[in-house]
Structure formats: C-alpha cells, structure tokens
C-alpha cells in the first residue's frame, strides 16, 4: 500500500501572515512557496533514540519531590492519519504553563508564581494503536502583549514527529468551552471553523479517575492517505 500526502490537506493550516497575530508580520515568508515534489527525502522520517523515552516522562506530576499545585488531569487520545489508521510508535512531546499560567522559561515575565514541583514538559511514544496518555495539571490562562488586554486560552503545546518528514506537526490543544476563544488570534488563525474545532479537546467523563483526576481526549490527525487504485 502506498501512502500519499495530498497538498490539499495543508489548507487546514493557518496562513503564515495572520494579521491579528502581530509577530507574524516580520516572520512570514512573502515570496511564493515552491511546490516540492515528494522525493525519498520527504517520504522518509525522523529517526531518533526511541528506546530512550521512559515511562515516567509521560507523568508531569511526578518529576519533582512533591506534587504540583493545580487540577490534576489525564490527557489522552490517538494519533491517526487521514484514513484513520493509527500512527504507531511515534514521539509525542508536550509542554505547558503551570496551573497559575506561568512557564518554566526565563523569558516568561508574567507575575504569577512558578511551581517548584512542576516543569511542564513531557513525552511519550504512541503504542501500536496510535494511543498516547499523559498525566499533568490543567494549565492556566496567561496574558501576552499581542494587543491590549490579550490573554491566551489555556492550552498544551504538542509536537509530533510522525513517520515521514511530511507528517511533522506542532500544534496546541485547547480545553472545551474556554471563554477566551473568541479573543485569541492564535486560535483564530485557523480560519476553517471545522479545522479549528479539531484543536479543542473533549471532556471525557468515562475515563476520569474517580476521586483522582478529570480526563480530556485529544485525537490528532496527521497527513497521509492510502492511494486508491483510481489514482494509481
């Protein structure tokens, strides 16, 4: 079976220059992109030290001596391709602010407290069904300087390597019903409403752990379809 990576699928992505997101102004290419045929270089994929990922890397609440403050949550889901086939054995990396909306980064000057028991970075490799699972705390919203009184909705950053160079994806996962959605240019830079919905996780009551943690489901779809005989 041959996997193809239709260029049309890329229309789900935001434009490089999105007016509402000010920093795009000087950091977006202005010349036309050159359409790149998919050669062996693009159709092969990132290989790294798969075996070096430890089980504890997927639990962001157990990286320090004590437990972080905040609302403990499970975030899980499947990584799939456009035909809903699992993307197995691929690296998922996450990073996020703590429950107070503060990142463990020197440049973050938001006057909210750091949590000595929370760094906010994790990683996991999907299983043979494309399934992944993290334990963390719910990140807080935080202000930024894009425009007057700008606040980012709570989100978790996701990085996915995929199986080929063409599947590489960095995205952000949001939480359902966030009142900040309407005001956030990064969320709204995805102009297609259906595509935007795909960045919002769903509350997953069935998989909450009673008296321990709430649960959110976030399925991620990477590029890739099987070539149909008609197209061959």
């Amino acid at each position, binding site marked *: 079976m041959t996997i193809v990576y239709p*260029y049309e699928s890329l229309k789900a992505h935001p434009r490089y220059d999105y007016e509402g997101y000010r920093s795009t102004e000087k950091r977006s290419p202005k*010349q036309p992109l050159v359409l790149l045929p998919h050669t062996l270089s693009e159709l092969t994929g990132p290989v790294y*030290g798969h075996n070096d990922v430890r089980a504890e890397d997927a639990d962001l609440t157990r990286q320090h001596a004590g437990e972080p403050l905040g609302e403990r949550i499970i975030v899980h889901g499947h990584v799939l391709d456009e035909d809903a086939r699992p993307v197995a054995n691929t690296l998922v990396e996450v990073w996020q602010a703590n429950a107070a909306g503060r990142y463990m980064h020197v440049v973050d000057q938001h006057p909210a407290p750091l949590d000595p028991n929370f760094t906010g970075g994790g990683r996991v490799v999907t299983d043979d069904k494309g399934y992944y699972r993290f334990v963390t705390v719910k990140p807080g919203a935080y202000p930024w300087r894009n425009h007057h009184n700008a606040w980012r909705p709570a989100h978790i950053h996701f990085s996915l390597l995929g199986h080929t160079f063409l599947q590489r994806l960095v*995205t952000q996962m949001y939480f359902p019903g966030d009142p900040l959605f309407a005001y956030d240019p990064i969320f709204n830079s995805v102009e297609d409403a259906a595509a935007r919905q795909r960045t919002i996780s769903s509350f997953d009551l069935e998989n909450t752990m009673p008296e321990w943690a709430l649960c959110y489901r976030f399925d991620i779809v990477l590029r890739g379809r099987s070539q149909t005989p008609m197209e061959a």
Partner: protein
Amino acid sequence: MNGITPSATVGPFFLFGLVPSSAGGIDLITNRLATPDAEGERIRIEGRVFDGDGTVLPDALIEIWQADAAGRYANAQEQRANTAFKGFGRAPTDSDGFYWFETIRPGRVAGPEGRAQAPHILVNVFGRGMTRHATTRIYFADENANAEDAILGLVPPDRRDTLIARREDNNGEPVYRFDIHLQGEHETVFFEA
C-alpha cells in the same frame, strides 16, 4: 473526524519541552548527529536566522533530516547494524540567532524520474510568530551535481543561492554557512511540501 489537525506556533517557551536539557532533563534529539562510527566527511553547519527587518531570532528552532554518506536514510523499523547515525537533528537558536549542527556530509539519494538528487539536507524552521513551520533545503556550494538537481531546477534561478551553504574553513574543520531569512531582500526559498 475529517481533515488534519491544523498547525499552531511553537511559541516563545518551547525550550524546556523540546530541548529538555535546558531545564535539567535529557534530550532525545540534539544538534550532534555525527556518531563516532559514522562514515563520511565530518562537517559543521551553522548560521543565523533573521526576520524581515534583518533582526535575529533568538527563539527559533531548526530541525534537519538527512541521509548518511552513502545516501541511505535511517529507518525506525529496520535499525542498521553498521552505524548509529540517524540523520535527524534539532537545534534552538541562541540570543544571537545562531544555530549549529555537527553532522556528516550526506550522499546522493534517488530523486524524481530516477535521477539522483544532489546531496542535500531537509530543514524545518519553527518560531514564535510562525503559525506553521517553514520548510527549506540545504545544498552544498562545492557540489557539481547541483546543476542537475531536479528540485533546485524548480526554484527561480535568481533565488537558488539562498539554498546553497557556503564552505568556510574553521581551523581546518569544514564549516558550511547557511543563514535563513524568513523574509526581506534575501528571503530564503521555502517550499510547500
């Protein structure tokens, strides 16, 4: 669910997540690709990343993917016994917008219509203010095969030099310089891949 999950910017605060050593963790993916057993010419690739004002990006992330010296790509399913070289690297820029990789010079790999491609390295650029990563390629200035490369042939001739890394000598060590301009007069050629 129909359609892919859309991209979002990597933002300004990715270091502790994507380069965990910056926060006391262990990196899986680094800018030192050249394993001790890798055959081929050891090279260094370095450069800076600029915005449309010519200001450096102190918060960009560069990833590369390349073949080994024999023109073979590593394969996660089939680990090769003869080398630990994998060909995937990641480097954040520093406060001067500077990045570097230690790697080996890639060999030629198959290209369109059975014609071998000139040696090249695939590059993705991530950053705050970039809603999607930008994809480009590094070619090598001292490489005759560039003239017949099918992908370079798709690039307007007057912009091809933005994809060519120039060789410099750093105390006898070969260094290829590859600056990346996201926009402006010297805007790097980016691909829709």
